[in-house]
């Protein structure tokens, strides 16, 4: 195949992936709507003495299991309407298919351009979607962070949206590299930043759900620390904890590359500044998790602040601020 055929195949694969993510989102949305309706009906049916027992038992289990694998707290409840778990399963499988298509698209793109396929904003976005989808699927397969299954709709929606933006606003035809990007550090620095970004995204989704769930539980008066909110928070923490050293490494690799090509390892270029701000927010998050009175809600806000800084660095700095990283190509 010629490089233009590869380029065409890559574009089609990315388009297919986007469609698959949208289908996954629909399937997961219907699945979770039916589940929550089933759950509500079940709750009504249980408004008998047994409901109290159920709540008590559930609370107790979670207390015991702090630091243990979380039991599956949702989704596959035997009471939920028939077919809902199947819809959730289908949706999650579609996410896997979408990931395979995205990765295939990235590989084809690399073949078309004859270099690593992450050197402009279109490519960062596509690879970023693959990274965060992979991070999500890995985390959701682990018992401790299985609660993220509930975040599937948002994850699928975000993936579809990002790919849509990539294909319409950010699209750049496959091409070679300008000299300053022609370095082994491109592979390392940008790959690390993308992987960390994927995990940050999963973490951010979990943090948002955590805050929403926290408010919901407070309103309902469930109010105990050991709840679904806490499970979501732990899932977010897992994502951030994996992402943070990778992000640190990305920043260090960037500094080494900057030293190599611009003659200084740190120059407060806007991109560097925002990478630093992102780093400091996530560092604050990790410290907050170890500080009484900051764990939970406040920590989640810090994590979200870190994600906003990360997003601004990726989008805002490229579009509005400029600086030495401007060849990223909008």
């Amino acid at each position, binding site marked *: 195949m010629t490089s233009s055929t590869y380029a065409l195949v890559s574009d089609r694969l990315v388009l297919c992936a986007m469609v698959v993510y949208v289908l996954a989102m629909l399937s997961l949305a219907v699945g979770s709507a039916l589940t929550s309706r089933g759950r509500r009906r079940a709750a009504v049916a249980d408004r008998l003495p047994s409901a109290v027992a159920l709540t008590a038992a559930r609370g107790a289990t979670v207390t015991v299991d702090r630091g243990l694998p979380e039991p599956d707290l949702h989704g596959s409840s035997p009471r939920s309407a028939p077919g809902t778990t199947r819809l959730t399963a289908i949706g999650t499988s579609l996410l896997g298919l979408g990931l395979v298509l995205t990765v295939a698209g990235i590989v084809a793109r690399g073949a078309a351009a004859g270099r690593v396929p992450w050197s402009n904003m279109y490519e960062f976005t596509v690879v970023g979607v693959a990274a965060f989808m992979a991070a999500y699927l890995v985390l959701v397969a682990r018992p401790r962070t299985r609660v993220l299954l509930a975040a599937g709709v948002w994850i699928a929606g975000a993936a579809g949206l990002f790919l849509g933006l990539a294909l319409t606003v950010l699209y750049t035809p496959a091409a070679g590299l300008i000299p300053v990007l022609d370095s082994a550090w491109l592979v390392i620095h940008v790959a690390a930043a993308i992987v960390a970004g994927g995990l940050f995204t999963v973490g951010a989704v979990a943090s948002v759900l955590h805050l929403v769930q926290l408010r919901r539980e407070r309103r309902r008066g469930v109010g105990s620390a050991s709840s679904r909110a806490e499970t979501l928070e732990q899932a977010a923490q897992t994502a951030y904890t994996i992402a943070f050293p990778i992000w640190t490494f990305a920043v260090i690799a960037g500094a080494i590359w900057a030293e190599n090509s611009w003659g200084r390892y740190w120059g407060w270029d806007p991109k560097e500044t925002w990478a630093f701000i992102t780093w400091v927010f996530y560092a604050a998050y990790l410290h907050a998790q*170890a500080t009484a009175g900051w764990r939970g809600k406040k920590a989640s806000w810090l994590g979200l602040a870190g994600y906003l800084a990360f997003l601004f660095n990726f989008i805002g700095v490229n579009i509005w601020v400029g600086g030495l990283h401007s060849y990223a190509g909008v």
Partner: protein
Amino acid sequence: MPPDTRLDTDLDHRASSSAPAPPPSEPPSLAPRELARWAWRQLTSMRTALLLLFLLALAAVPGSVVPQEGVDSTRVAQWQADHPRLTPVYEWLGLFSVYDSVWFSAIYMLLMVSLVGCIVPRTRVYWRGLRAQPPRTPRRLDRLPAHRSFTTDAAPEEVLGLARERLRARRYRLRRPTDDASDEAGDGSVSAERGYLREAGNLVFHLAIIVVLVGVAMGSLWGFRGSVVVVTGDGFANTLTRYDEFSAGPFFDPDDLEPFDVTIDDFDLTFIEEGRQRGMASQFRADVTYRSSPDAEPEQRELAVNHPLSVDDTDVFLIGHGYAPQITVRNDDGSVAYSGPTVFLPEDTTFRSFGVVRVPDATGADGERQQIGLEGEFYPTYFFIRGEGGGPGTAFPDARNPVVSMLAYGGDLGMDDGSPQSVYLLDKDALEPLTDDEGKPVRVDLALGQTVDLPDGLGSVSFDGLSRFVKLDVAERPGQGLALAGLVVALLGLLGSLYVRPRRLWVRAERTDDGRTLVSVAGLDRSSGGDLSGELDDLVTRLSPTPQTPQEQTP
């Protein structure tokens, strides 16, 4: 300080007890000693560290929005010209050099003090903890958050022996029986702990951050950085006077400049012709000859982006390029008053470039000494749009149709009084535009090879050829290796502090009334995210001679 005190509140106060105690919310008394102690505790508390981190992130923001002196001084000047009323306020706030400002420095200095104040006592605690034994087995294992129990026919000693063997193999540290004779010999139990490297990684990470900052500080105190423009074919000797821009730390000694020199033999670049990146360089490199000292053998190599030249501790980077048209100014009698490649600095990515020609010793028609200045732009691929909003421009950065377009001035160039001047600007205080017969300023427009006469018998200007120049950055940053080493160590420490999971396990075996042995196993994770339950199940499976399902109990 880092995230590992999560469960310290539960059973064990070893790490937390001598860490700074929770600060009282109000100063206890006004005695200076007490007050100082209170302030110190406040400063070194985690809450303060958290606040300072948050402030640090916020304080870094303005520097990415307002142009910075140290990053792009041209943009600062432009911004200040556009906002005359805000400028004094911004200047007073230090917003044009945020990262050197008092308030930014104050935040990170406080953060460093807070860090040291936290690290030192924790290192002491850790050192003591490292040499201490794992804690005594709690009396009631079933009170712990995760525990299992089962009965077996094996003797208690046998079970405990198996447990010790297993835990040792899993790299647990065991409490020595002799230290606690009553417990170990009596009803018999094993106390084990692992994951000491978490706190070690934590401490190493924070210490390494300080090392990194020391390395960075060394670079800015003893280092220098300069940039120099060299026309292809010319050379550059590393002396202070040769630099166009130069900044050095307060302890830098100009005599320490390495005595090397570099000659740019050839410069080669190719432009991308099509697509979105049209007009960007696809290849960009120079062949250079360099000598590390005047007596050294010349060596040749290629200098390119991402491939700097290192001479001893100094690095030379190729960071930019541009055009140097060869311009000759002749007197009316044909003698040469000025000749040579003249550097025109690029103004944007199209390589529309700006430059000046200064001719201090031209001869006027009457034979008197006359100074001439030319100032204007160079267009590599010239075009001209007529009419409203039109004007000259360049269609491509490569030299396809090079044109120089300058205005001519006569008078005093201001070079004679010895005051320093930029080579790239014309001091027009004592210069008058040369005018033609109609009184209009004389514009010298030259395509390659053309010559234009100046009015009043001042001679002629010709554009004879086109050279390129390269812009080199030269820097020496002592402490760079130290900073890098610090970063690597910090990263390793960070991995340890996040992924090593400290865990305590206890096994107790007691004889029951019916002559069997009741084995209780319990564990406590001192960080979140570990699979404690799995490890307990595994231990139970190993200790029970016949496979059996352990009873999980809930308190």
